[in-house]
């Protein structure tokens, strides 16, 4: 309960930071739209229409109030430059974001399905055969993948699997009509990239969490009571390692979402990351704010889930004395 409140407070604090950061940005959207030659009165009118003339605090609470009702405002772009023009093509931010968010969640979801089990299996087996060649090569390779930036990994994949051996497409453009199989095929490379950049960290943390627990007395006790190596790891070490492992998974899932900004750009994938980059470019404040808030909330929610797993997997917290 306390954690839940704390999570809400964090999201709230984020919203303040996000909002104020964009308010402090130099330049003004009204002049941006209307161009340098715009008359002062036109700029003023547009500012009034957008609500930019109100003090920041009022604007913040207006925005926050609307966000609570699921209304992120209207996008600035697509707005007609001529006041009163009936051909206003600006779109609701929500309508703009949701399909993109779905795409991103699909991408990261598939990557997570791949990365989490793989890294758990690799991490546990590396801990099991600690200091073997298998362990050393697994930890070594994972260090390389963690250290290389996502765009680099992405280009390596393009080079290998799209150019030299053209198995997968380089461009992962999808739309609403794309079938599921087609989607898997087209998003293969971005999924691989996201999997690879997060897997190393998760695998290494799983390995070290298990190894840490392997040195505790109850593990020695388990061995002395005749438990096999597999039993020691899976029955005795793993249940006590869920808390740290779920923490690191949460961080990596969030990182995947953020990492998708770059990856989506590289593969030209219509996700929320690309949308955000584009909107920053256009100074489309409502969209950028909405995206940032979504990213921040994801972090908070994922960490909350990890904390919950930590509590559920620990009888000391679940059943107090």
């Amino acid at each position, binding site marked *: 309960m306390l954690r839940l409140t704390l999570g809400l407070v964090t999201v709230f604090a984020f919203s303040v930071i996000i909002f104020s950061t964009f308010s402090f940005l130099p330049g003004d959207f009204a002049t941006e739209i209307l161009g340098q030659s715009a008359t002062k009165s036109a700029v003023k009118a547009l500012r009034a229409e957008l609500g930019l003339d109100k003090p920041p605090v009022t604007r913040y609470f207006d925005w926050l109030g609307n966000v609570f009702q699921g209304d992120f405002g209207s996008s600035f772009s697509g707005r007609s430059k001529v006041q009163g023009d009936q051909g206003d093509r600006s779109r609701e931010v929500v309508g703009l974001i949701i399909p993109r968010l779905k795409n991103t969640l699909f991408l990261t979801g598939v990557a997570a399905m791949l990365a989490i089990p793989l890294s758990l299996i690799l991490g546990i087996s590396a801990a099991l055969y600690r200091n073997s060649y298998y362990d050393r090569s697994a930890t070594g390779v994972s260090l390389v993948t963690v250290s290389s930036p996502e765009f680099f990994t992405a280009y390596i994949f393009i080079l290998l699997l799209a150019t030299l051996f053209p198995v997968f497409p380089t461009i992962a453009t999808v739309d609403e009509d794309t079938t599921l199989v087609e989607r898997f095929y087209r998003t293969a490379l971005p999924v691989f990239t996201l999997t690879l950049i997060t897997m190393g960290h998760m695998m290494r943390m799983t390995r070290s969490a298990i190894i840490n627990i392997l040195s*505790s*007395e*109850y593990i*020695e*006790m*388990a*061995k*002395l*009571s*005749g*438990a*096999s190596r597999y039993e020691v790891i899976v*029955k*005795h070490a793993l*249940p*006590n390692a869920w808390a740290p492992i779920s923490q690191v998974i949460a961080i990596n899932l969030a990182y995947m979402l953020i990492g998708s900004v770059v990856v989506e750009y590289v593969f030209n994938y219509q996700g929320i990351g690309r949308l955000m980059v584009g909107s920053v470019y256009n100074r489309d404040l409502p969209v950028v704010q909405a995206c940032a808030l979504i990213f921040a909330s994801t972090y908070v929610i994922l960490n909350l889930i990890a904390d919950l797993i930590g509590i559920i*997997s*620990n*009888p*000391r917290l679940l*059943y107090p*004395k």
Partner: protein
Amino acid sequence: MTSNNSKELLLEMKNIHIDGFSDERWHKILKGVDLNLYRGEILGLIGESGAGKSTMGKAAMGYTQPGCKIIKGEVNFNGTDLAKLTEFEKRKIWGTKISYVAQSAAASFNPAHRLMDQTISASNRLKINPIDVLKKDAVQLYESLQLPDAENIGDRYPHQVSGGQLQRIMTAMAMSPRPELIIFDEPTTALDVTTQVEVLSAMRSIVDKFNTAAIYITHDLAVVAQMADRIKVLRYGEEVEEAETRDMLSNPKEEYTKSLWSVRSLIKPEETNQDYILSIKNIDAAYGSSKVLHNVSINIPKGKTVAIVGESGSGKSTTARVITGLLPQLKGEIIFDGKKLSPKLEQRSKEELRRIQIIFQMPDTAMNPRQTVDEIIGRPIEFYQGIKGKEREAKVIELLKMIELDETFLDRLPSELSGGQKQRICIARALAANPDLIICDEVTSALDQIVQEGILKLLQKLQKELGVTYIFITHDIATVKAISDEIVVMYQGEVVEQGLKSKILNPPHPDYTELLLSSVPEMDPDWLTNLLNKRSS
């Protein structure tokens, strides 16, 4: 038991050599020890820490800790040499034919599983009996170990039961597959004396009941005297001597064994006065919402030693924390040398802080491992007395001489000292502030008996020379007898009684003092039997 049966050899360890790897090199831990154990017999293995007794106990299972290896020797169990078996083959013996009871039950149970599942896990591996039969049997074992609510205690998790109960459940776990041999590795060391009695009697009766052979490892002679048929003394990885328990107690042959016996001979004549350096009055204190001290009042006469005794959870260490200001009291006051001390540490003057020092139980964790002895002792000199440079060094050397060490120790790090030397350095650090009152919080409990004696002698000598007052917090009655003038008995956050040593230790006692004193094991092998008879009548 027929004499023929009793002489059937179960375990024969021959010429065991074990090396351990630490500090970048291999050390010899065991240097050719033999051991014979007959069916149904209990062998006591005693020695100080580092004697190799635990290593020997584990080697009896053919197991060595990571970083150790068996260099030479045979471990013949029922005619099979365990040292030659593969891991896979050994696992068929571990937990089922030979089981192990560890020192710290709290750390040795897996926190994630229920106690019942852990109790029967080894016997379940045998696949002889179905799970519900095993569970029923486990409940019976719980009952014969006198565990409360034997029917349901297995459904709990390890953190939900007390240390003494855990230790008994671990014995049940060891007994569940009806092994031929149980290794008890210091099973009661972490327990209070009052709990220890219950656990000892439970373990002894169950081992008798199933006629299981056992190796009982401990550093406490009085405890091993209650448990073992035979005793083997180890030192520096070698055997000192071995004899039947009664023979060894009445007639030890080797000098070293005699010295183990004589440790408890330290005696101090009691003295007291009405000139109190510290009085705490009607103190209440709490950690968060749980209240741990109730109306505690203690007077500490100047230049004397007051021992505070009680089992864990009695509030003795909390009292020390209140006196030092680490835990501000909720109610009551502390008068130090005629002046009232403010409850909070931050509000006390440097002078007040200087005059009260504390020495902790674990010298290992009480010193910064990256600081040399010179820095550890020198800092309080500089901080409290403002002495620097050459003068400071001279002062450090003077303190080292006081604690019977010399200037060759100046550049050493804590890791290069033995346990006793570390505790001496901690004493010097407390002395460096030139205090009037030193609180010794279980300062000898982590040390071996011979080293303990040295530390206690040193503390007495320093008191004579410097006139410093001690508050001596301990659960060990032998230490109390050796060092105190007055004794305060605490139980569940309250003072049971305070008075001169002779008054507290001699009858009549309040009920709790009686229980506490009678639970202290004595060197008499019949002590436990007599005590249990007396208590049940």
